[in-house]
């Protein structure tokens, strides 16, 4: 705890310095605008006399994703849902070259520390002395960035509107709203730190603009001394813990006998895994994404005594919907999970079927 207090105190001079930098940047921007008057008049930018021109949705997506390259930071991260649930964690982040590392120490709920080294995630549960390991498969640091240029047409399904400036955790931030162009997805209001682009706060918005869930740094120290070696060492010290590995096997929907007769606009199939849920049964997970939101479809054999309720569950912005799918060879229990409106999950559940 004492570290939180100390960094909270000495975070202030840093932010003041940053404020000066931002001020200088604004002044230079003002000069640039004054020098380029015709440009400023173009498009009648009345309410934006100061600052750079609006970034396009594509520029914003690239900027937000590149921001995870910030060399290092330490902060306290708070996530809250419209239903009132609130979680917080202490975060250490470091990026050296192609390697991104993070340590997330949960401050609420069951004590746990999660470490990430690029796609590998290790979660320590000190109370049960269990370590969960998950080796991701998506290679590279920015798989999503590449995807945006290729498979995903995220920019076709969202529009970016810069709506002003704000201050989060002591840092000045640009506020941008990623507005969905249809009703199949939620919107996002994002606070992006002015200098680095780092996402310091996000809100997930439903169609009427209500906040379903928000996440923000309550305190942040950019370029704090974080040693990747230390994190790597901590991530590897599993002595005294029982190690469990996420045994997921890559597969294809075709091989598992599934297909989507009608998809949801913008959502592209991403990957398909099979993972055991008990010694005898396993579940197939088929993942879809539009670049921002993700939907997982879980298919498992129907069991009368366990699968008794079709329906919808809500947890923050994450919705869950279940449906029983009839099949000659035995029925199936399909669960759709995603940070999307219920109608989207419903469309997925109605679109999924067994291959003949």
């Amino acid at each position, binding site marked *: 705890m004492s570290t939180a207090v100390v960094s909270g105190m000495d975070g202030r001079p840093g932010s003041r310095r940053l404020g000066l930098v931002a001020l200088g940047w604004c002044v230079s921007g003002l000069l640039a605008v004054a020098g380029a008057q015709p440009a400023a008049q173009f498009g009648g930018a009345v309410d934006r006399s100061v600052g750079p021109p609006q970034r396009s949705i594509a520029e914003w997506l690239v900027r937000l994703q590149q921001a995870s390259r910030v060399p290092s930071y330490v902060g306290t*991260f708070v996530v809250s849902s419209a*239903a009132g*649930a609130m979680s917080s964690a202490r975060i250490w982040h470091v990026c050296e070259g192609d390697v991104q590392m993070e340590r997330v120490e949960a401050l*609420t709920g069951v004590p746990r520390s999660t470490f990430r080294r690029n796609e590998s995630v290790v979660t320590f549960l000190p109370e049960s002395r269990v370590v969960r390991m998950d080796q991701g498969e998506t290679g590279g640091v*920015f798989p*999503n960035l590449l995807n945006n240029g290729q498979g995903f047409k995220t920019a076709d399904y969202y529009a970016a509107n810069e709506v002003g400036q704000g201050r989060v955790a002591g840092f000045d931030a640009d506020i941008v709203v990623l507005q969905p162009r249809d009703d199949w997805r939620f919107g996002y209001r994002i606070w992006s730190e002015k200098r680095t682009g780092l996402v310091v706060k996000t809100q997930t918005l439903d169609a009427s603009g209500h906040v379903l869930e928000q996440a923000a740094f309550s305190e942040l120290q950019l370029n704090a001394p974080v040693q990747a070696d230390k994190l790597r060492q901590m991530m590897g010290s599993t002595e005294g813990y029982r190690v469990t590995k996420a045994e*997921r096997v890559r597969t294809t929907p075709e091989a598992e006998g599934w297909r989507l007769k009608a998809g949801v606009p913008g959502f592209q199939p991403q990957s398909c895994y099979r993972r055991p849920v008990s010694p005898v049964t396993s579940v197939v997970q088929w993942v879809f994404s539009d670049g921002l939101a993700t939907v997982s479809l879980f298919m498992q054999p129907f069991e009368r005594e366990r699968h008794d309720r079709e329906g919808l*569950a*809500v947890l923050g912005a994450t919705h869950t919907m279940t449906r029983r799918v009839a099949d000659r060879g035995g029925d199936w229990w399909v669960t759709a999970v995603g940070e999307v409106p219920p109608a989207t999950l419903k469309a997925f559940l109605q679109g999924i079927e067994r291959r003949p």
Partner: protein
Amino acid sequence: MKNQVQAQLDRETLSALMDGHLQGAEAGKALRMMDSAEARECWQVYHLVGDVLRSSDLAACGRDSAFVSRLSARLAQETGPVAVVPATRPRDTRDVARPAANDGVFRWKMVAGLASFAAVAAIGWGVMGGIGPQPGMGAQLAQGPSGAPTQVVTLMAAPQATLATASEPAAAVMLRDARLDELLAAHRQTAGASALGNAAGFLRNATFEGPGR
């Protein structure tokens, strides 16, 4: 020669001790090592380095060691009532080590705990009209406490939605079951990589395990 090796060892262990990486016997050994003036000086310098890295304003603290040695000298002189000293001293040190901020953290956790509980109560199940082949099956809708958020209820505004009063009232509010948790966790593992860049999605998911986990 031996001294040098010893000194080498000291620094690494000392650094690990500072970072809180030592536990049990290792920590005990390291603490015993702190008896030497050299180790204490090293400790001082390492902290100073850390402070300066965090803020240059903290560079001007040269009197720490003098203060510590004066304090130890005074402590050694203390011959006062033996019974009082142990009773007050541990308390003082704790107060110094954990300022009032700690208090706040505890209260914060209490509040967060209550909020989590409220959220658990609010998570319910309902039937989306027209979904699934058997309309009679599981036609139950979560009826949260009166103060519970209305997310579920508003979604139920679909025309065909039947607000069946649960046949077993106790089951109407369904706490999250372990199987759904497993699926949520699996979804989060894969979703972490795509929402707003790796880091943001991962942070959200690692932080927001949701209530009851």
